[in-house]
């Protein structure tokens, strides 16, 4: 699928359809994944694991062109040229750049979209929040 500015990839759809298929509930905020077979204590642990602020981190790879990474950042996040270049240089020089932070579900969707572009992107829980 072709990612579009203002709408990240299919991870949100994937999660929703997966949860519906498995009979799980999807709450709005914070994201809660639960299953009727689970004990309440497990529900709470899942909720705690998913809530809070999540970071989308892009890691350096020795292959993708700088101009390509800049294009991807502009496309996926709507960054202007300067911001996109700044983030790309962080990836290149420091090995990683935090390109977005926020709710887990949205962060997953950004990671998915970046992976569609073959960048090495990971989710990290923001321990400062």
């Amino acid at each position, binding site marked *: 699928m072709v990612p579009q500015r203002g709408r990240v990839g299919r991870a949100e759809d994937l999660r929703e359809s997966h949860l519906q298929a498995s009979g799980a509930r999807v709450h709005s905020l914070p994201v809660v994944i639960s299953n009727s077979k689970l004990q309440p204590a497990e529900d709470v642990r899942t909720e705690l694991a998913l809530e809070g602020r999540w970071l989308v981190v892009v890691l350096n790879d*020795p*292959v993708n062109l700088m*101009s390509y990474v800049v*294009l991807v950042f502009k496309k996926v996040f709507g960054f202007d040229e300067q911001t996109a270049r700044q983030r790309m240089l962080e990836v290149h020089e420091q090995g990683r750049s935090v390109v977005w932070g926020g709710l887990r579900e949205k962060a997953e969707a950004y990671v998915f979209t970046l992976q569609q572009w073959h960048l090495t992107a*990971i989710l990290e829980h923001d321990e400062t929040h």
Partner: protein
Amino acid sequence: MMKRIEVRLALPVVAPLLDVIKEVADDLRENLAAPPDLADLESEFRDAWVAELLGGQNREVEALLALFDEEFFSEGIVAFDSDNAETIVRAAAAVRLQLRERHLKPLGDELLEGGDINVMTLEEKPRKAFMCYLFLATIQELIIQHLDKSILDA
């Protein structure tokens, strides 16, 4: 009016590289070019995630291979426009990542990133792989230089 660029390639140079690209494309049917770290996702969701990525990657690589059709072998021309620019630029990224994985790792990432490699010193297999790697980078640069607006506006 749709912007379109046509690139005339030297057939004797590019045609021998296509076997390497096809070989790598075969690898990519079942393997992601940049395997994601999805350890903290539930297994079913992770499987769906990977399957979706793999499906997209396969469609992209097929589109890249389709550029080298009968017209290419008779005219030596490949064409890019707003319809295929994003797909091809992504496919080229996937194939370049897999070229590194399969053939170019022994060169070392620093050398690969710097690009300062004397191809004449390489054995035939890594030499062809490195030529493919450069060729696909050139295609990416051309698309980004001329069709970036098409990609951003799509």
